């Protein structure tokens, strides 16, 4: 029975640009994931900007009680977005791995 390390080495020698090929085959998925990542960051930054504006309004002399509620709501929305996309990326990684295994078998 051939040694597994020997098989892996010979396979890598036979296909030196396997990672280019792998990326090329999955490029749509990679682009979609990157787009989602950018959208997530944009959404989080927008919510952070709202928080910043609210803090500035407090500094400018607006009553703290009314704005504290809005700040909490903004913070909750921030947490919801962060949680959703964090879990979604983990879930996508799991699904992607499962698909790869199914395709090989």
């Amino acid at each position, binding site marked *: 029975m051939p040694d597994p390390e020997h098989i892996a080495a010979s396979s890598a020698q036979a296909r030196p640009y396997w990672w280019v090929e792998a990326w090329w085959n999955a490029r749509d998925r990679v682009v979609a994931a990157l787009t989602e990542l950018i959208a997530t960051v944009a959404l989080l930054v927008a919510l952070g900007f709202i928080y910043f504006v609210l803090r500035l309004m407090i500094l400018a002399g607006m009553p703290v009680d009314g704005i504290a509620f809005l700040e909490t709501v903004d913070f909750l929305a921030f947490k919801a*977005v962060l*949680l959703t996309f964090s*879990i979604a990326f983990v879930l996508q990684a799991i699904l992607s791995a499962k*698909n790869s295994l199914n395709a090989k078998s």
Partner: protein
Amino acid sequence: MSPAKQSRKQRAAAARVASALKAPQLPVKKDFLGDGRARFRAYLWAICMTFAYGFVNNLLLSRPENRVNEESVVVCAATLIAHVFFYYARAASANIRSRLTERLWVALQQLGQRKFTRIASVSVLASLLLVSAIPLDAVSASLVKMIQNGRLPESVAQFAIQEVAYVQSYKTRKQIAATDPAALNPVSNSHTWQGYKPTAAQGRLGIVGKGIEETKFLLGPSAEGFAYTHPMPMIFSDFTVVSLGHDPEKPIPQFLITTLGASQDVVINNVRVVGLAQDIENLTWTNDTFENCLIRYHGGPLRMANVRFFNCTFEHPPTVSGVQILMDHLSTHQGEPVNVYFP
């Protein structure tokens, strides 16, 4: 060509094509990772559910934040997993919920395809990143400090106020003595206190408040006056003195008592005096206000710039004609800023 005139082979070929068209198409294999709409729907639901859970529990029910945070993770994960599960498990049905997300998805796709939207999005994102790069806590802390303390330590701020007051009094002298060059000579040079030179550590003697509105001194009926002046550089700046009344058998309390000596290097700047008496001569007054005061003047040296009198009474010796003219002027121009120089 009518069907009757077709050959047998042609009729057979047409039947094969028709059957192929009528045959049910093979179901396409579902892929959550490749279906943008499904992912979008799942994200939307997960965000809404997590936010709603946090809102209800944290804000409405006031539950502890740590517990709500932990439970929110579970809610979010459960929502996403449920969406993935149902995506693979059940056939698509066009209910109201899916139609709504479908329309939102189409709108987002259309927006994303427009060049203007792309440029605007990139610009907004860049500016947001730029603004968010500033640490919020540091900015708010420094803003608060700047607003509250004027960014200066208290001793430095006080010294700066004194210096401003001194410059103002000097400018005042320059302005009101334009016709008399002798007024430009520092008064302290001709005085026995000429050796006195205030330093930054010492500052001038006197009282410096935080402003007319912020610093208020109230004088009770038993008080004879607010402060004594001396024949040396002094500063009284940025406060209000209000009399709460006085004993009718005693004289009206004085704001600054000059019996120990006075000097035109005693600068009273940005002070509001209410209901007190004051001998105004031999002092330098800048940006001050007198309300319901008794003002005494006996013809001595006087320097005033931007001083206002409201409802004041003026007391002066009847024999000095120049003083008479000045007092008449002050009493008839109450409320107006007055600049006076009497050497």
